[in-house]
């Protein structure tokens, strides 16, 4: 076994497993003792229980592995507990790095976020634009920065940091980045902030990851993003795509943050799900124009157009009952 995926049972993970299989690679998956592995079971993926709090156990699981995909970087479910989120993020990342080094892993491909990409003056941001210190734009941004910082400092093995923008596509079981899309397609009027959102097809991210695992020479940091959109304009186009009423106007940044904080406190108190999670608000409010072309040029692929992504997501979401069939697909969203 030469390829191992940590966090293969989730949205990106299942797409990566499928992309690896298409390339003839059958990886081992490190999984938590309790978690949703239905997608891995149905794909007959070999699994081993690993623990991101114990580098000895993880090192044992990684024995014989040359390439590790780390997709399980901490994602704080709320932004209410800053220090706990940062502590867990740093600790788990260090365990993965230590275990990989001890197991003799040659290449660690770590999936980060575009939250770590700094704005650039007068041009779209590229791989060179990185916050020199924690961005201070919200808990999620700082958590992602802290983990990426640890990976960047690693000198015992080769590391590649991948920064995908908002992933859309099939198998988004937790309805993470596609939450706004699902709410809109259901004819609801979701609250969303004014700002920018960059999107990428999750299958493009998966294919890029496969290539990064096999290329002889590779970059140390890579942005994966097809296009940056003004969210309010995109929501209007998506409403047309799904044949539903146009959504209301975007919230001001101040109103969006106030609303998302209230929502997270409500969820902490009563359970359920935040209508607008704080990290989503932060990502959009502080969104920057991204240039994802370096990945295309380096890895030799082209991002799928948004229409293709929406069709794939729509087919999957309809199949699992997340949304009904679109009333009309005749009006296509303009391709990037």
């Amino acid at each position, binding site marked *: 076994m030469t390829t191992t995926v940590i966090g293969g049972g989730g949205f990106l993970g299942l797409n990566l497993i499928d992309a690896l299989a298409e390339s003839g690679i059958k990886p081992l998956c490190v999984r938590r003792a*309790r*978690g*949703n*592995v*239905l*997608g891995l*079971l*149905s794909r007959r993926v070999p699994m081993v229980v690993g623990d991101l709090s114990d580098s000895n156990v993880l090192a044992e699981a990684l024995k014989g592995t040359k390439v590790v995909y780390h997709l399980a970087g901490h994602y704080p479910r709320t932004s209410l507990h800053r220090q706990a989120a940062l502590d867990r993020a740093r600790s788990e990342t260090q365990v993965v790095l230590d275990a990989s080094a001890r197991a003799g892993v040659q290449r660690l491909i770590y999936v980060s976020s575009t939250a770590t990409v700094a704005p650039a003056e007068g041009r779209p941001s590229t791989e060179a634009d990185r916050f020199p210190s924690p961005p201070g734009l919200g808990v999620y941004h700082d958590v992602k920065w802290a983990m990426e910082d640890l990976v960047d400092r690693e000198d015992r093995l080769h590391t590649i940091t991948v920064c995908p923008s908002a992933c859309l596509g099939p*198998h988004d*079981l*937790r*309805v993470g980045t596609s939450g706004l899309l699902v709410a809109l397609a259901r004819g609801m009027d979701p609250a969303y902030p004014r700002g920018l959102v960059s999107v990428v097809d999750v299958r493009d991210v998966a294919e890029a990851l496969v290539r990064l695992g096999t290329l002889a020479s590779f970059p140390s940091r890579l942005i994966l993003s097809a296009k940056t959109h003004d969210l309010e304009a995109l929501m209007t186009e998506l409403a047309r795509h799904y044949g539903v009423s146009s959504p209301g106007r975007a919230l001001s940044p101040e109103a969006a943050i106030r609303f998302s904080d209230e929502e997270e406190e409500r969820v902490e108190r009563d*359970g*359920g*799900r935040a209508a607008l999670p704080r990290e989503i608000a932060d990502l959009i409010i502080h969104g920057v124009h991204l240039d994802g072309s370096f990945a295309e040029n380096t890895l030799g692929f082209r991002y799928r157009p948004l229409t293709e992504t929406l069709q794939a997501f729509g087919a999957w979401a309809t*199949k*699992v*009952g*997340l949304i009904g069939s679109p009333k009309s697909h005749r009006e296509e969203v303009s391709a990037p």
Partner: protein
Amino acid sequence: MNDPTEFEQVLRNTIAEFCLVRPEALEASHRLQDDLGFDSITSMELLSLLSERSGIEVSIEEAMQITTVGELLALGLERSRNARAST
């Protein structure tokens, strides 16, 4: 696992692990989310663990449609019967 009674016991015990309810107190009409406190994530984790423990295959698509203990039990029993019929 192709014994329906055994499956039902595994189902009751597995649900009880998640929501601290006595296995024998579970009723078919109990809704996973509204009555037993599961959310969409823990519901999937329950289905996943149950699938591993019982050997009964549940697709993600099927898992996302299940809302009550009774529906889960019916799916498991159907799979158990099919497994028995094919052996």
